[in-house]
């Protein structure tokens, strides 16, 4: 056995300093991208920098971003919920039905929130109670929830929402700041604090990184996941209230395809799709970027489906580029 010389070595907690980490972080990259898009947009169209136009633009992403916050927590915990858009449809249908029964605005909101929570609880029970893979379960409930609104509505639509109800989608709190935008900011702060500053938030990361280890450390994995699915249902209900109030009508095809946009937003925000890492500020930035891109393209008369190509490319490239970069650096250092 060779004699090894003991030398006191300084092993740093982290390989890089605080500043270096901040510069190299995903969020910094997102800020740069957001600024670049903002600049390009303001040069490309003279209408972009108008405060009212910008305020209108926020409607592009606020509702989706509300769901994205809860979705981020679900994805960090290693699960996924693809049924969110269908929860919006079913919630909106339930509220439309309640309008026909003569409910007023506070009752409508209660009906909406209750429907969303029920849907979320159903997902949560299937995933945690029966131990089924969330991706298939929520593909199933995605078809079930929207299917139920098709059964109720068929090819008809619910309209006639009360005047006071439309405030949730069209009202302004102060000057150009709409109710939806303010709600988005408040929710962003709440979710940021919950995920980054509470023990509940830490357990979500623990579950996402190693579920078995989390279980053995005393984390009630099943209960936490159930709460996360419940939260996603609740957020989808809130988004549904805003969207229904904004559109003033309910069709079964409402919010079709939103689940993809929400997942794109979360992944673009730097949340690892396999679970275990991600931040709320990242998701907020991703929401801003997607909103600005959609709005800017809209001002330039680019059709919606071409924007979806861009969103698809964005989704793949934001994940591929860091991998390619790491591989390139790895090759160079060898």
């Amino acid at each position, binding site marked *: 056995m060779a004699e090894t010389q003991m030398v006191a070595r300084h092993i740093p907690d982290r390989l890089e300093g605080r500043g270096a980490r901040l510069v190299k972080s995903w969020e910094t990259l997102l800020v740069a991208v957001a600024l670049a898009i903002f600049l390009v947009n303001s040069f490309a169209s003279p209408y972009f920098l108008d405060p009212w136009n910008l305020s209108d633009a926020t409607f592009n992403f606020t509702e989706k971003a509300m769901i994205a916050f809860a979705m981020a927590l679900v994805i960090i915990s290693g699960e*996924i919920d693809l049924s969110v858009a269908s929860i919006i449809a079913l919630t909106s249908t339930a509220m439309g039905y309640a309008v026909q029964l003569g409910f007023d605005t506070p009752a409508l909101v209660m009906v909406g929130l209750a429907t969303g929570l029920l849907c979320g609880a159903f997902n949560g029970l*299937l995933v945690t109670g*029966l*131990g*089924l*893979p969330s*991706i*298939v*379960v929520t*593909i*199933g*409930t*995605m*078809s*079930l*929830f*929207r*299917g*139920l609104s*098709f*059964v109720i*509505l*068929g*090819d008809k639509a619910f309209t006639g929402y009360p005047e006071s109800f439309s405030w949730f989608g069209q009202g302004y709190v102060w000057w150009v700041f709409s109710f939806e935008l303010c709600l988005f900011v408040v929710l962003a702060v709440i979710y940021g604090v919950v995920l980054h500053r509470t023990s509940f938030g830490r357990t979500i990361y623990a579950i996402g990184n190693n579920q078995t280890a989390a279980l053995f450390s005393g984390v009630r994995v099943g209960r936490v996941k159930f709460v996360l699915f419940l939260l996603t249902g609740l957020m989808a209900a809130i988004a549904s209230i805003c969207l229904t109030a904004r559109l003033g009508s309910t069709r*079964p095809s409402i919010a079709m395809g939103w689940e*993809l946009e929400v*997942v*794109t937003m979360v*992944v673009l925000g730097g949340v690892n*799709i*396999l679970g275990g890492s991600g931040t709320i500020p990242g998701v907020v930035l991703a929401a801003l970027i997607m909103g600005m891109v959609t709005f800017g393209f809209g001002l330039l008369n680019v*059709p919606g*489906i*071409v924007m*979806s*190509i861009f*969103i*698809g*490319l964005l*989704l*793949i490239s934001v*994940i*591929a580029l860091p*991998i*390619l970069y790491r591989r390139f650096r790895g090759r160079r250092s060898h």
Partner: protein
Amino acid sequence: MKLLLKNREMLLVVAIVALVALIALRFPPFVTPGNLANVYNDTSILIILALGQMAVILTRCIDLSMAANLALSGMVAAMINAAMPGLPIPLVILIVMALGAVLGSINGLLVWKLDIPPIVVTLGTLTIYRGLIFLLSGGAWINAHQMSDAFKALPRTAVLGFPLLSWLSLVIIGIMVVVMRRTPLGRAFFAVGGNPHAAVYTGIDVGRTRFFAYCLSGTLAGLAGYLWVSRYAVAYVDIAAGFELDIIAACVIGGISIAGGIGSVGGAVLGALFLGVIKNALPVINISPFAQMAISGTVIIIAVAVNARAEKRKGRVILRKAEAAHG
């Protein structure tokens, strides 16, 4: 009887027969041989697609872009035919199958070379392929009168009393049975999904196997694109929108484990037939077609729950057998 029910394929056969019998109580003409052949023919495209999806799911991946691939390939087939009506149809089919394979290989390459999670890759390509149809066609429809008669007639041509579409799906089922059971690639699909680490130690390239699974699903989606467009005689941006869920549902119902490594050609075919029977039966027994989505959702959830139970039980059964062998 108990042994019979433990086998997923037998369970599905029993379920389908029971379903058909129930429908027959409400509407006897449904069970005439002619109508059953029609139901099979109507399900053929779903069967072809489910077989491609099966290969992908077996390797622990998922292909959400199949329906978009189908729509893009179908649009290209229709555009080629509209521009060059003289081009022989088999050549058009070969071209769109090649196109489908290329679209599938893009998924495969991203999964293989960049290690991006399959669900993210195919979510992305799903929207990209749909968007490309719009860019190609400018949002315009290609209608029946722009397609040549030969283009539209091929799936309908009767051979031995059955349409060519049905025969084609039977041939593909046959090919898939041979590929899955008798070729190294087919066995590799199971090995990669069953235990990727063990697969590596047996000398199987996991990434490459997944790549080939995506090529296979892409090729079949390309073929299905031509079949879809020629059968319904119209091509536009939104054809088969949301059909990716039906394909996955067929696989899940057929007992193909979403966790990979478990499944069979027979299961995928029967799963697709189960959905096909429901879809064809709803209108004749006076249930609103709007209920179909809710019903398939419920069926998916039940099928996943049954799958999970079956997979849990499997380990115990093998142990018990081993104990019996020792004792």
